[in-house]
């Protein structure tokens, strides 16, 4: 299953990199290329999610779950992969919902912010995957300069976890109420 995973991860990584580039071009540049980027973004995002699901499923089959949960590198790889999936799922939902208006006004900056976060996460997921097969890259050093030693598990103190959940619930509730108000 290792080889299958290595093959399949090219799809989400490629599509996510492409989607990030398309969002940046679509949001920041004028002209034909930007129009094309905006128009073609949704299918790229959908394909990235399909590729990610396949890659993640095969990734979980490489080692026993017990080993995945006991390895700091594997834990970090899983977290970054699932958070990448989460970010690009957000982008997919928002772009799908807004349609051709996804880049209008301040929306574009929403897409840019999410794309940059997602770019950081999938780059981290990829480099951690390289570590796991014994091929580390200099990007690990970049992550180290950003305060994260990748050989230690990424976890947060309880108060930060609580803050993240509170932010999620509060914004979610705000969104639901807003939807009810606007019908």
């Amino acid at each position, binding site marked *: 299953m290792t080889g299958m995973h290595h093959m399949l991860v090219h799809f989400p990584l490629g599509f996510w990199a492409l989607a990030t580039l398309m969002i940046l071009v679509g949001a920041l540049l004028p002209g034909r290329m930007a129009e094309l980027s905006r128009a073609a973004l949704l299918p790229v995002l959908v394909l990235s999610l399909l590729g990610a699901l396949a890659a993640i499923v095969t990734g979980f089959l490489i080692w*026993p779950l*017990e*080993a995945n*949960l*006991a*390895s*700091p590198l*594997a*834990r970090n790889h899983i*977290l970054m992969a*699932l*958070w990448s999936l*989460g*970010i690009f*799922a*957000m982008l997919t939902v*928002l*772009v799908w*919902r807004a*349609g*051709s*208006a*996804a880049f*209008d*006004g*301040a*929306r574009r*900056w929403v897409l840019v*912010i*999410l794309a940059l*976060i997602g770019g950081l996460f999938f780059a981290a997921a990829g480099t951690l995957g390289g570590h796991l097969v*014994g091929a580390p890259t200099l990007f690990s050093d970049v992550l180290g300069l950003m*305060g*994260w*030693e990748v*050989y*230690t*598990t*990424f*976890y*947060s*103190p*309880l108060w*930060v*976890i609580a*803050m*993240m959940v509170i*932010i*999620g*619930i*509060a*914004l*979610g*509730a*705000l*969104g*639901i109420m*807003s939807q009810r*108000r*606007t019908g």
Partner: protein
Amino acid sequence: MARHYKGASPWLVLGLPVALGLAWITQGTGVIENDPERNISIPDELTMPLQVQAAYNDEQIYFRYRWPAEQAHVYHDMLRYTDGKWVRHGNSRPGPDPDGTYEDRVAMLVDDGGVPDFGRYGGYITVGDQMRFFSDSASPTDVSAHPHLGQQLGQSDVRKYLPATRTDQSDWRSVADADVLAAQREAGYFLDLWHWRAGRSNPIGASDDQWVGEYRNSDAGSGPYTTNWDAEAEQPLWMLDPEETGKRALRWEDVTSGKVDFDGLYYLSEDNRTDFDPDHDWQEGDVIPRRLLRAPEGSRGSIAVHGQARWEDGYWDVTLVRDLDTGSPLDDKIFTEQGIYDIGIAVYRNATGSRWHYVSHPYTLGLGRDAELQAVAFEGDAPEWPDDWFEMTLFYPGQVDWPLLISHAHAGAEDIAEGTPVRARHSEKQLALYGVEMEFNDAITTRWLMTLIAGLIAMLGVTLALLTTFRPTRLGDRS
């Protein structure tokens, strides 16, 4: 037709970088802390350097070790007169001894190919199930009741042992039959252990000589120290000879000063002791070493200090010497010209003992043949050391045992089964960090999972908040 709406602000998206940014900034905190109840004490530094040289002549082999240490710890296991009683200080405990009364040490495992896994995985193969000072260490009662370890060897803890000495790798109790153990030893399935101690052997120019098989055993003969304690009378057996030394005891303030005069008096030995005088007017703070040093005998006395092992200017410099062929092939690994050997070295410093040491990867040692550490042939009585060291990085190994490494819980178990050496996959820094994390594995796994889920919840919440903003309308459209 598009219609006007008053949805949530698109800038609610900033809730996500805030949430994830907090997670990033604070990651790795809130779990790892010392817990003596669980035998957990994390050293401030996880790696340290060690320099090594080796040389040999026709008769003997020399190993020179040099490593940094803030100060020398030469006092070990002291009896301090306190409130009319002799109170022990400096026995094994998690982390540094608060009084500094725990000796520095260097230990070297040696193999001649009889234990092939040692050359690939080093000392990890000797870390078995429920080792002493692990959080799940076997109870002394259970070990004492064990027919071999307890009743035959008289031990009450689980120390280093080799995998094939157990029939079940996940159970320290499953010691192989005595005839199997004997056959393994005959076949060379044991590790030689050179064991120099700054307090319990160095003052008399000696080193301990041990071997690892089904336990960390001592070579035949007597070691460089014995216990200075009369359990019945609850007092020392011996004290300093006032006629020889001008005093009967050391002073606690000297012992804990952090300074040592290597040419002065800081130990109790056969040459400076006399019978303990219980009628002496002992004073608060008088100190008598709980160990009496004596010249080791037999196979256990094969290793000696060459010259003087000293700490100076922030470095220990220790040279040990032994006959190439000790004549004890069941206790020692015999060195020969054109031989290749595997070694693994551990250093204890900062008044720590037991498992709170720094260990090396395994390295090859060559006598006349290419190897990572090249022993230099010389003629004469003593080597002239060049300024050319073999540099090692030692690391704190944490609580990682062999049963774990070959289990489903280790992603590299298949690599081990295939014989891939540890150095091909893990750096010293990586192993040190992993070793620390394994001491908190359950807590870290739980916290990691909570972090992962919390991040996804934040993403979901932000998505819901943005749905109205991302309705299929042109911003500013009016219905």
